[in-house]
């Protein structure tokens, strides 16, 4: 990375003269190293989510597709996964083979953490390319301290890697814009690879190609308009078409590597998948939303604004709002100037990358659930724009002391976020900001632990409780539990004498219930004795209940929501009701 490179937006938005780019870059590298070390120290803390087992299996099947010489076709029909590119799943299968004898879920969590750090680097580069080294460093720090992003890095096998590829695609697109009208082949090759990797996780990455097409079209139109010449316009359009076709072809090739189903009809099937995914309705479920408990198809446009509003750190949210307004004003006032066309396009790209996907989802009426995890990919550009805004705002301050105060406030808010993340660990995904009162304010009103990340903590606490209170029984007992989540995923965190109720011979009932918040699992077995709660920021995220004192019908899955009949009040002989009232 050149230290002398100037930022793309420096002439469009106000910015500070950087005293020393090298210092900021060195701090950024040190920060990345710190993030990497944190990943290596903590990746074992995260739970197995209900999505992971399917992706591990899909990755295994894709690797078999190759190792069997394309004769093992299990990957072509596997659940609904065949509609997704399996680029990350294939990488996971290779990584697991390398990481042996590490347990497979543990290995994939390590890979997730490493890929997440790559996303941090991509966002740093994006911020740096937009507004210089200090904005890049700010973007890096703000994304690292974004609890939802950090929490998803480890055990989200789809949305997190897609977001990483999306961030890198945006960075390379900004780099290509800076080089227009003739981006170097190296930049275009990297852009194609990044978009291809995004496509190989989710076909929704096609939106990146749409952004590229729009940017190239606008540049060509602007160049033609400047020269007032049809010939010039035609020459620029030809160039734009060449660039667009080359990047698309490269991205398509990269996408196909991890997607066996699409390999068999590469020109049609990705679009079939896109059509199917656009009307994806496999997950119809009820969930808490704004104090109500609704079906996900009953919620309208307000779903994403609510979640982004309450699950984005306050600093990012406020700066994003200011930055959006500022950016729109800057584009309208100065975006059409000949010398500002590249920064204007870069700013427009970042704005589109943030706002177009959610708006499109609302327009299409896509069913939404699980907070904004499906839109995790808009977080890096959001953070980058927030960082650029901070840089620009501070640049407006004339007085040195005012700038000092601004940086101090920013640092204080970031340190506050760090403290909150430490308190939430490893449940960072349940973060809610102070506008709603933190996690405690969101419980029951919004989805929090929709991924079951709290289950390991709950299971380990159950094990420790039983070991402490009934040691002799513990050693000679097999306990059966229920928990609204794959038994295999939960078993990873406890020894073999903890088994799911499905493994009980004869009638299937449970001794313990481990209930996270999805589908109100915590409210099952209302008469069970609570023995442990996973609590974060004052909010209860998981409840472990001892069911052993209940009659068997109230310990089965059928009886999970039943309440024991209330005991009949004992009659008090000889005191008429009227007399009781009279006596007060």
């Amino acid at each position, binding site marked *: 990375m050149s230290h002398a490179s100037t930022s793309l937006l420096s002439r469009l938005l106000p910015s500070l003269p950087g005293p020393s780019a090298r210092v900021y870059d060195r701090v950024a590298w040190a920060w990345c190293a710190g993030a990497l070390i944190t990943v290596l120290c903590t990746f074992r803390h995260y739970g197995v989510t209900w999505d992971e087992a399917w992706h591990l299996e899909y990755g295994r099947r894709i690797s078999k597709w190759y190792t069997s010489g394309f004769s093992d076709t299990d990957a072509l029909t596997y659940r609904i996964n065949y509609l997704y590119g399996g680029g990350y799943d294939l990488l996971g299968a290779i990584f697991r083979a390398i990481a042996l004898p590490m347990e497979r879920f543990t290995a994939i969590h390590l890979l997730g953490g490493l890929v997440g750090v790559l996303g941090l680097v991509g966002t740093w580069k994006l911020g740096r390319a937009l507004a210089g080294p200090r904005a890049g460093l700010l973007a890096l720090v703000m994304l690292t301290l974004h609890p939802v992003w950090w929490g998803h890095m480890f055990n989200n096998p789809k949305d997190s890697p897609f977001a990483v590829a999306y961030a890198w695609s945006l960075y390379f697109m900004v780099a290509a814009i800076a080089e227009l009208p*003739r981006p170097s082949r190296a930049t275009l090759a990297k852009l194609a690879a990044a978009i291809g990797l995004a496509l190989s996780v989710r076909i929704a990455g096609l939106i990146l190609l749409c952004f590229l097409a729009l940017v190239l079209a606008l540049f060509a139109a602007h160049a033609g308009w400047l020269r007032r010449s049809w010939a010039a316009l035609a020459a620029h359009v030809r160039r734009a078409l060449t660039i667009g076709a080359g990047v698309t072809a490269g991205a398509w090739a990269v996408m196909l590597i991890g997607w066996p189903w699409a390999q068999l009809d590469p020109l049609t099937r990705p679009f079939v998948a896109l059509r199917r995914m656009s009307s994806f309705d496999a997950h119809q479920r009820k969930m808490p939303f704004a104090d109500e408990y609704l079906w996900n198809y009953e919620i309208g446009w307000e779903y994403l604004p609510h979640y982004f509003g309450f699950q984005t750190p306050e600093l990012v949210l406020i700066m994003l709002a200011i930055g959006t307004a500022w950016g729109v004003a800057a584009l309208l006032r100065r975006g059409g100037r000949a010398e500002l066309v590249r920064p204007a396009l870069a700013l427009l790209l970042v704005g589109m990358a943030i706002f177009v996907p959610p708006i499109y989802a609302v327009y299409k009426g896509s069913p939404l659930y699980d907070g904004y995890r499906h839109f995790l990919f808009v977080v890096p550009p959001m953070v980058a724009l927030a960082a650029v805004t901070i840089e620009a705002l501070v640049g407006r301050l004339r007085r040195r002391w005012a700038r000092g105060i601004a940086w101090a406030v920013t640092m204080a808010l970031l340190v506050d976020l760090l403290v909150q993340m430490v308190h939430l660990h490893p449940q960072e995904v349940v973060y809610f900001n102070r506008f709603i009162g933190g996690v405690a304010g969101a419980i029951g009103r919004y989805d929090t632990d929709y991924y079951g990340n709290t289950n390991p903590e709950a299971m380990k606490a159950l094990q420790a409780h039983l070991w402490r209170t009934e040691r002799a029984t513990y*050693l000679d*007992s097999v306990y059966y539990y229920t928990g609204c989540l794959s038994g295999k995923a939960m078993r990873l965190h406890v*020894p073999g004498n903890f088994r799911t109720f499905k493994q009980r011979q004869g009638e299937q009932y449970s001794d313990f219930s481990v209930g996270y918040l999805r589908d109100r699992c915590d409210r099952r077995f209302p008469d069970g004795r609570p023995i442990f709660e996973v609590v974060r920021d004052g909010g209860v995220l998981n409840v472990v209940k001892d069911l052993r004192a209940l009659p068997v019908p109230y310990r089965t899955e059928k009886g999970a929501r039943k309440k024991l009949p209330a005991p009949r009040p004992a009659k008090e002989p000889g005191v008429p009701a009227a007399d009781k009232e009279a006596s007060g």
Partner: protein
Amino acid sequence: MMSETQGALSVAEAAHRAARAVTVDPSCEPRSAAHHLVGAWEALARAVCPGGHVPEDISDVGGWLPARLQATLGPRAVTELGRALPALVAERARPGWESRAFALSRGEVEAHTWRLGELIARARGEGSPRPNWTGKAALAAAAAVVLLIAVRPWYTLTLQPWRGTYYARSDHSGKWQMRYDREIDFDWGRDAPMPDWPADNFSVRWDSCLHLDAPTRAVFQSISDDGSRVYVDGDLIVRNRTKGKTQSRGGEARLAAGVHHVRVDYSEHSGDAHVQVLASFDDEPPRPIPASMLHAPRGPAGEDDPCE
């Protein structure tokens, strides 16, 4: 105060920027960059030639460009630059009214512009060439990583701490095969424990040597389907008799500091097969015994005390 050399280099950079703006613009004829390119060459020559004298034949790049700069670019690049330059000089000298074909394609002009930019940056002292050894070192490192991943020296089965002797009968007799396992935690279900092995009616004997730094009250737990036993130094600590269902049994042993032989016998008759052995040495719930506390016996199977 800017020196004459620095001033000339600044002029060369400005001319080069103008040339680049023309060459990358698809609506401009590449020949229109010739004027700027030759200007950049002349300014560069003023900056690097002794006394600031521009050579009469500027096309002879190899003749006037200092050896230091030629070395940083490489002989091939210098030759390429020298090959295209006469056409550019001729284009600049062409009178405006005279139509004449331009000898260079757009790609050639772009390549020439790019190389000239590199040359100016080197003359300025920027963009120092990457030493050859970094590329080679990067290649060697990549090859080493690939080799390491392929060989995986950290995952050598014989370094695993449990020596498992797998018998093709359920009473620890008959045909056997040995392998080393990292821990005793297997859930074979209805599958066989290894290829070409029966899924039912097999048994396994695991041996390992447990290192204790201090006298310890150890608790062992065995969870299995079917039965299993845990011995320490020949003493039966856990007897887990079960057939057809998962059962957990525990036992306690007071162990002196030193090395102890731990043996686990497991038998599978029919149905699901799984076995897990755990231990607690510190009053915490039983966990898999850390590999750092164990080492595998190296001798043949069946000896009395393989940890001696």
